[in-house]
């Protein structure tokens, strides 16, 4: 069931919140051993919250739009009672969080029920979903393949049907990459749109939080429940909430939609460009636009990420370097040594680039681009081969996501399925603060039957049969 279907069934009395939560817990118990999406299951807390919600319903009290919907969050979100590990060994020695992160509180205020925390790449510096401490999250559509990262557990939990809704973070692509690899919908909102209070940071200049789900309606429901200013996050917008659900079905007739050419039309496997072409065809979008200086934008995001990440972790690098994932440690150590002028120049370029892309959005409302240069690679793979040229896999997975998050553009990741095999992600990109347009287009692709996020074959059945 989707989140919307669960909430509807719970609100109308056809399903109790306890039954919805118990089903999610049973599925996690039966299936998570295969996909390794969860690092913590908060079963007792979830059942207690479900009973409280059922009691409110029994008293005739109003419940929110996500009543009884089980959800789980990347383990960089604070969860009261758990140390916020952020995929690391070091952080699990921290004291337990005193209260939930802001977005967890907002989802629960809307009636959703937290059932656990999800696996992720260490400190979110990752696109693979592999984790040296907790083991890799695996792609439910083919367990030998990567989930993508760094919100790997958030994608794997959805594609395995463990929960209908998860939260992730996206600094350079960490929501959009696992959405693409695991075949689910994801929303990286505008930078500053959703509060980051009560989450463990990575790169303050680029960090975003957002929802992932198996339908666009569920994305919109969750996104609307989480919007609104928050003085606890100085970057959070002071704009009031701008709900997208009321306009989700408005169609795309009034939107100017184009495909991103140039940088976004090369350097990937043919099937990722074919997915973008099919999406454009379904939308009747014939125009091609060029996002200017995307390669420089990616390079600047790369430098800022390494520098700010290193500054964040400098004390841990001084005292605990051997306890990091080696792949993360060496990048962070290098990041600490970047000459300062490069970082400042990257930030100056960023403002120029934001202006140039804003000018582009005077002529177009929505731009389509591939999410990743390839479909989910096999677990443990370290090389990406494009046009016969081998390159390091890890950094290059983000080649198409990084130039967009760099200037905080809202992007919906939409799963499109080739004739056979693993899914491909298409990025639906809009101007800042126009998540509504990105989601309307994502919905149109879903309604047209092109985009869909099924539970993996073999994992659809109820847990007692799947075990």
């Amino acid at each position: 069931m989707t989140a919307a279907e669960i909430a509807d069934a719970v609100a109308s009395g056809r399903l109790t919140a306890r039954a919805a939560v118990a089903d999610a817990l049973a599925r996690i118990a039966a299936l998570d051993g295969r996909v390794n999406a969860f690092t913590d299951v908060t079963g007792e807390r979830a059942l207690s919250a479900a009973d409280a919600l059922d009691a409110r319903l029994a008293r005739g009290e109003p419940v929110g739009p996500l009543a009884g919907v089980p959800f789980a969050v990347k383990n960089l979100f604070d969860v009261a009672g758990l140390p916020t590990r952020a995929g690391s060994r070091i952080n699990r020695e921290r004291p337990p969080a005193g209260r939930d992160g802001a977005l967890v509180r907002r989802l629960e205020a809307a009636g959703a029920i937290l059932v656990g925390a999800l696996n992720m790449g260490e400190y979110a510096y990752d696109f693979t979903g592999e984790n040296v401490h907790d083991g890799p999250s695996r792609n439910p559509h083919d367990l030998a393949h990567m989930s993508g990262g760094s919100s790997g557990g958030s994608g794997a939990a959805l594609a395995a049907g463990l929960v209908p809704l998860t939260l992730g973070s996206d600094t350079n692509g960490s929501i959009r990459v696992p959405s693409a690899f695991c075949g689910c919908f994801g929303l990286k909102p505008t930078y500053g749109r959703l509060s980051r209070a009560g989450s463990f940071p990575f790169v303050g200049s680029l960090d975003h939080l957002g929802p992932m789900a198996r339908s666009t309606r569920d994305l919109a429901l969750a996104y609307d429940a989480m919007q609104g200013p928050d003085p606890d996050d100085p970057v959070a917008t002071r704009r009031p909430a701008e709900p997208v659900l009321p306009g989700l079905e408005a169609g795309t007739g009034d939107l100017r939609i184009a495909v991103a050419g140039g940088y976004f039309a090369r350097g990937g496997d043919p099937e990722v460009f074919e997915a973008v072409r099919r999406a454009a065809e379904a939308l009747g979008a014939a125009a091609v636009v060029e996002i200017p200086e995307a390669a420089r934008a990616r390079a600047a995001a790369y430098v800022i990420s390494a520098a700010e990440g290193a500054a964040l972790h400098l004390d841990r690098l001084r005292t605990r370097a051997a306890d990091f994932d080696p792949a993360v440690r060496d990048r962070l150590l290098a990041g600490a040594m970047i000459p300062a002028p490069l970082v400042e120049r990257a930030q100056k370029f960023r403002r120029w680039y934001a202006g140039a892309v804003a000018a582009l959005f005077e002529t177009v409302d929505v731009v389509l681009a591939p999410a990743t240069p390839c479909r989910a690679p096999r677990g443990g793979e370290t090389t990406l081969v494009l046009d016969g040229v081998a390159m390091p896999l890890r950094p290059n997975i983000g080649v198409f996501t990084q130039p967009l998050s760099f200037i905080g553009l809202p992007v919906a990741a939409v799963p499109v399925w080739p004739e056979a095999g693993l899914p491909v992600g298409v990025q639906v990109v809009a101007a800042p603060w126009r998540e509504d347009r990105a989601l309307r287009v994502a919905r149109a692709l879903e309604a047209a039957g092109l985009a869909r996020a099924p539970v993996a074959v073999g994992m659809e059945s109820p847990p007692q049969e799947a075990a």
Partner: protein
Amino acid sequence: MSPSPDPAALGAYVDAAAPLLGLAIAPDWHEGVVAHLSAILAAGARFDGFALPDEAEAAPVFEAAP
């Protein structure tokens, strides 16, 4: 900045910078750190020469009060 600094020079830079930053680079990490720094500097070289006026502001803007 040079887009592809000589690996030996970069290794010497890493050796000099580490103690200034209070960092200790274990011998078997050295090659990885140098490789990552080389990749970062190559990325930096892509925008380092991008001409912007002296008056260009950086993206982050400080606000003295809301």
